[in-house]
């Protein structure tokens, strides 16, 4: 099947991707759609910076500005950062633990398509009467007051994509719990797999409150309930709590995989085992655990009272400890190593100062009384961009360069990669460092304009100038992708030369069954161990060569997701008294549940790859080390 795919035409390729349940192809889908949404979110960011480049600018109107800032935040968090990370998890994690696929390949595909349709639905709001305009946090009183259907696009779109994310989270957890190769104990798992594990656990427990909060929002706006309607006894603080009970773990869902990616990079490009692996693992678990106990630090000014504020302030400060442990362990991984500054390592090295800066401002904001000044000012804008851009986005760029050869079999240009890094890195600090001071000088966040009499002109101009550098960096990355794809110089198993974990022991890109024979893992950094012991094949095997059982492709995930997409349109226009809305809701749900029923009634037993084909495959692919 997949070996034929190269010969067939464009339509067949599309069909192959739409029906694929192969974790590597789904990873590419995540990467492409996440990348697309990243560009859209980036354009929105540029619009924000253009509007704020001088006092009293009228590039965007007040209403449009609110739509742009809402969509920028929502898109970047839900539709860009998270899917891109899910993409790398999909691509790499099963390879790292020596699995042939994830535990539920069908659900993996369903997770992607739900995310995709949810994201498309949300972005359609631009063309159907206006985007959401209450900020990505969508606080209830403003969201209920918002007149256009924008908020409904937000609620319904995020419900759909949220289900997708939850499904992916469960899938990764089960994969890691059940599908590890023989010998791959928990304490031998690569750190990226560990962070995937903890981030998935956070997804599992953090997404339900969001789903419920959004559910309330949908019912309040579309079906007449009163959860947030103060006049009818409702309470808007419920939204804030539920949102942040989700929202804070969400930040860790983003940053932990980023930590995982950087951990891999530090080890590979320092040619050295991760310093304090055990400490790093426990720090990851601790951060995940604390993530659920600090959400109210987003709500210090709400008026919860000094006891609650003090408790949450202290809980928040404690998180700095495991995070600090990680930083020092990374530094000590470099220490005494042999450091090569390839592009991924440049990002990793750039990440440390950026993230430390974001981290310390985080601790400053944990001090509740100080936060009364910092909250909802540009200081906080600077802070979270330092952690999210300085942590997550740098990690995504780093992983793009690091894993590109593994996913596509060809390297991105190192020269252009370094140009991208420097442009983006300098632009990033230029844009956001100065925003700390804007906040301290009294500039609230989410303002569409500011008067010339406030003294914020110069710093805003500098900030906008920095954004241009970031945009240039991204454009060069795109050029890089296109150029190297056209050139298509094939690479071997271990193109960086210093791979340590299992994914570097197999061809790039790997065959669709990943491992012809399941490997036997003898320790942390399996591939490194085998290399050092002179094992030419890169791994030893836990089973003889035999037939491999693989799942069938399926178009049902697309149909199921499409059904919810259709039903959402019905729900969205329900309060407008249109005759077709209820039938459309019913139709959409019928499509979804009908295809779900079809899936469970029709036995889908998969197929076998035969031993002879595996041997043929193996001879066809050269596996002689790097280059």
């Amino acid at each position: 099947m997949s070996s034929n795919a190269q010969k067939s035409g464009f339509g067949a390729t599309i069909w192959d991707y739409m029906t694929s349940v192969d974790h590597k192809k789904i990873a590419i889908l995540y990467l492409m759609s996440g990348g697309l949404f990243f560009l859209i979110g980036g354009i929105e960011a540029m619009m924000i910076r253009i509007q704020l480049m001088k006092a009293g600018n009228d590039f965007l109107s007040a209403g449009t500005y609110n739509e742009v800032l809402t969509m920028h935040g929502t898109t970047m968090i839900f539709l860009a950062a998270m899917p891109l990370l899910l993409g790398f998890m999909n691509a790499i994690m099963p390879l790292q633990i020596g699995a042939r696929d994830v535990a539920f390949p069908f659900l993996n595909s369903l997770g992607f398509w739900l995310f995709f349709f949810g994201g498309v639905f949300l972005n359609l709001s631009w063309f159907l009467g206006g985007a959401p305009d209450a900020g990505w946090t969508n606080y209830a009183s403003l969201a209920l007051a918002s007149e256009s259907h924008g908020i409904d696009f937000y609620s319904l779109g995020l419900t759909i994509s949220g289900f997708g994310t939850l499904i992916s989270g469960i899938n990764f957890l089960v994969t890691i719990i059940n599908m590890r190769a023989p010998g791959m104990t928990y304490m031998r798992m690569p750190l990226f797999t560990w962070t995937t594990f903890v981030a998935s656990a956070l997804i599992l427990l953090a997404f339900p409150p969001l789903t419920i909060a959004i559910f309330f929002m949908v019912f309040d706006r579309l079906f007449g309930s009163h959860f947030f309607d103060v006049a009818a006894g409702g309470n808007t603080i419920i939204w804030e709590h539920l949102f942040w009970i989700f929202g804070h773990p969400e930040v860790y869902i983003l940053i932990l995989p980023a930590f995982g990616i950087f951990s891999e990079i530090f080890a590979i490009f320092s040619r050295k085992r991760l310093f304090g692996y055990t400490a790093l693992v426990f720090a990851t678990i601790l951060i995940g655990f604390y993530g659920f106990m600090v959400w109210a630090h987003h709500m210090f000014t709400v008026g919860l009272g000094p006891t609650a504020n003090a408790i949450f302030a202290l809980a928040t400060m404690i998180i700095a400890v495991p995070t600090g442990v990680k930083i020092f362990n990374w530094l000590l991984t470099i220490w005494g190593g042999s450091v090569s500054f390839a592009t991924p390592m440049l990002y990793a090295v750039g990440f440390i100062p950026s993230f430390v800066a974001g981290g310390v401002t985080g601790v400053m904001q944990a001090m509740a009384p100080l936060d009364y000044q910092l909250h909802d000012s540009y200081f906080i804008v600077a802070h979270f961009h330092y952690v999210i851009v300085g942590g997550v986005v740098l990690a995504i760029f780093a992983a793009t360069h690091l894993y590109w050869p593994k996913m596509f079999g060809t390297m991105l240009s190192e020269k252009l990669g370094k140009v991208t890094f420097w442009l983006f890195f300098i632009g990033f600090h230029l844009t956001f460092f100065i925003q700390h001071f804007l906040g301290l000088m009294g500039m609230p966040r989410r303002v569409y304009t500011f008067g010339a009499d406030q003294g914020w002109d110069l710093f805003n101009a500098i900030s906008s100038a920095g954004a241009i550098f970031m945009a240039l960096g991204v454009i060069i990355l795109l050029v890089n992708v296109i150029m190297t794809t056209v050139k298509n110089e094939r690479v071997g198993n271990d193109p960086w030369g210093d791979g340590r974990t299992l994914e570097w022991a197999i061809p790039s890109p790997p065959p669709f069954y990943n491992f012809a024979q399941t490997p036997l893992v003898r320790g942390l950094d399996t591939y490194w161990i085998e290399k050092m012991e002179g094992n030419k094949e890169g791994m030893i095997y836990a089973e003889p060569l035999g037939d491999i059982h693989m799942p069938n492709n399926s178009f049902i995930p697309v149909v199921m997701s499409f059904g919810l997409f259709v039903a959402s349109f019905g729900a969205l226009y329900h309060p407008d008294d249109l005759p077709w809305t209820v039938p459309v809701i019913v139709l959409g749900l019928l499509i979804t549940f009908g295809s779900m029923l079809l899936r469970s009634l029709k036995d889908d037993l998969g197929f076998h790859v035969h031993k002879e084909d595996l041997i043929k495959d193996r001879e066809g692919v050269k596996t002689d080390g790097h280059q």
Partner: protein
Amino acid sequence: MAHDVHEHVRTKEEYEYVRRQRAQEMRHMLTSFAMMIFLTLIAFTAVAAGFSTYLIVPIILLLAAIQVVLQLYHFMHLSNKGSGTIAFFMFSGMFVAFIVILTFVTIIWW
């Protein structure tokens, strides 16, 4: 990988033993069911009898908690071998659930 079931045909003795064990387990189940019914009865009676609220609320919450433990450990076999990981996740879930409810009944209201 282990997609195929490793088949093991039991001897007559093994089979009898397993059956007996299952029957015994089933009797345990019946006992826990009786307990659940009993606990429910106590809860409803306590409320119907109209004791002081401060007395009843903790008692019926405790009874509910006991019922949940019975369901999880007897009916749903959470204590079985190899269920450690799922028990960990289940309890993490309950921990988060507890924190959410605790918050909503304490700190946010004026």
